């Protein structure tokens, strides 16, 4: 029983980080119908930011968080300005192709600049600390990552729902033409959303840097899982992505523990297929 409790806790912690990666992706995907293949690589850049601030200046990851988020946000913004903007009206999968090329470029640029070595942020305020509640062990880095993820998702959701700019994003997601007729500067909306997506994944990268190695391919698996999570939650649905992330985390830990750890991602993919048989547009999609 305590094993199951431990698994559930672990699943939620693991899943909440997935959620945060996915929330950034779903924003862009829902708004522009663009699959950003380089999303995981934005995260990798933010992890490196955290790492170098730690290695060179001994900054704690929590201190570097705003900087890493800013860096990832800027990369998102630049990606929009330099690449996405020009392929917005291109047929079907062109944007995917562009972001794939970008992903390849970023990954190898990271290798070129920082070598392919696996790095870790060795010491931080959180590292090695843990809570023990009866038999259940909760690592503090994971707990903070999960809380940060929930906080960030909440902030993004509130921002979209409550602010004027958030409403402009919603309107643009419904229909670009109509939003423009209503006086929304859709260009600005797109740019900002890409930046916001970058910030989300930047925060995710920071929170992960204490528990996951930093190397040029860091973002690859998270990026892949994020695709599935976004689709599971329903494209463009922030809370959908959040809950889907948790669900995948739980499926991975509980399914993996009982059915074989090597299957943990296969189980996550299976969950996607099963759930969508009943909700063909994702958990929260219509």
């Amino acid at each position, binding site marked *: 029983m305590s094993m199951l409790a*431990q698994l559930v806790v672990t699943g939620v912690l693991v899943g909440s980080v997935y959620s945060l990666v996915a929330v950034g992706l779903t924003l862009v995907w829902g708004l522009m119908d663009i699959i950003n293949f380089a999303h995981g690589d934005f995260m990798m850049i933010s992890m490196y930011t955290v790492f170098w601030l730690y290695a060179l200046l001994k900054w704690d990851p929590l201190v570097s968080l705003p900087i890493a988020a800013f860096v990832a946000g800027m990369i998102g913004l630049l990606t929009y300005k330099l690449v996405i903007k020009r392929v917005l009206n291109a047929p079907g999968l062109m944007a995917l192709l562009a972001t794939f090329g970008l992903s390849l470029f970023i990954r190898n640029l990271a290798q070129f600049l920082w070598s392919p070595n*696996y790095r870790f942020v060795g010491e931080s305020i959180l590292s090695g600390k843990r809570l023990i509640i009866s038999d259940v*062990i909760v690592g503090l880095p994971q707990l903070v990552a999960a809380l940060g993820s929930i906080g960030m998702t909440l902030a993004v959701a509130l921002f979209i729902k409550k602010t004027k700019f958030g409403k402009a994003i919603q309107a643009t997601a419904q229909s670009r033409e109509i939003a423009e007729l209503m006086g929304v500067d859709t260009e600005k909306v797109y740019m900002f959303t890409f930046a916001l997506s970058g910030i989300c994944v930047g925060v995710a990268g920071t929170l992960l840097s204490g528990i996951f190695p930093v190397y040029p*391919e860091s973002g690859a698996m998270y990026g892949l899982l994020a695709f599935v999570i976004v689709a599971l939650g329903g494209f463009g649905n922030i809370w959908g992505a959040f809950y889907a992330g948790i669900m995948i985390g739980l499926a991975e830990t509980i399914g993996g523990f009982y059915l074989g*750890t090597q299957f943990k991602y296969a189980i996550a993919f299976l969950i996607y297929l099963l759930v969508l048989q009943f909700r063909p547009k994702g958990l929260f999609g219509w």
Partner: protein
Amino acid sequence: MRKLLAVLVVLLSFVVMAQEVIKIGAIFPLTGAAAATGVKIKYAVEVAQEIINGVYPEINLSLAKSAGLPNLNGAKVQFVFADHQGNPELAMAEAERLIRNEKVVALIGCYQSSCTKPASQIAEKYGIPFVAGSSSSAALTERGLKWFFRIAPHDGMETVFFFNYLRYLNEKYNANIKRVAVVYIDNEYGVHAALMVKEKIKDFPEFSLVADVKYPVSATNVDIEVQKIKAAKPDAIFHASYIGDMTMFVKKYKEFNVVPKVVLSYCGGYQDPQFVVNLGKDADYFAGTNATTPALFAKMPILSKINEMYKAKSGVDIDGPTLEDFASALVIAEAINIAGTTEPEKILEVLKTHTFEAPYFVSEKIKFGPDGQNIYSASVMTQIFNGVYEAVWPEQYQTHEPVPQFPDWKKR
């Protein structure tokens, strides 16, 4: 006049001969997930090239003392690098390109056994020697290839070495190790190592396998894997993991307070000096086979000198797998030198019969058996103390006594 011309021609041809470059292909994962190791190996092979082509009287190696290969009029050796990205298709294509287009006379590589397989198949097809350094899958030397040689001990040998070490700990230190768990990555490297454990444990009846934990390639976390291990309460854990996942495991062992008596690692992540850099004191007490360790440098001046050159390029001390690939470069060059020609058959003859000097290994020599496997195991058991890989076994190389007990994580 005509005489002069003739002399000139002869002279010129000497110069040309003297400057002839012998190309050897070196195929490694220089990009992609295993690039961290591949790039280090590249530095090591470059060091080998410098040693062969330059004059290093302080290094007591026959090829170090003269520039180039003395038996081939001082011909220089050039290692032509190619990147297989961890993809067997590319390993195969690059092998063929190097042989046909770059006219390499021999090949070394490919780190990952899955890439060494098709690449050495190509060498076999063209009748060109292939010397693998660190690829450890036992299957490689079980294929009956004529042109394939391997320096590293294969995972079958490593496994036997592991069990013998455990036996030694039980006998000498009353370690009372019985329960063994094997934890491995779900690819050719890990799966094959685990297979060897299941096979060899039959010869060591005092041990029982209590957990078999396989985790997917590019895992985002290893939480449940560690919980499975913890539930099995092993005395010894065998790890076949790369540096990234290995580091995550150690962090989780600490978090979940997993305290086995020994953790032994196959040639992989543990041997990477980054392991200690990343984990600091948490890396202490982990153990594994290694072809070398900085602790041995003091005892082995040649190794120390090689490491100096390597460290200047890479910034870290040379590690086991890297040294094995370094050795492959030296061995093939020496074989060509002894053959006195680049004719493949002659080189093959030398590789088959000659015992190569290898003062940088604890075994000090390399000799290939009929299957192409190096019969002198180059490995020692190492264990980390205060961030240093100390040699703990066999006793004649010992730089530190083994500690067959993990202290509690809180008491470090």
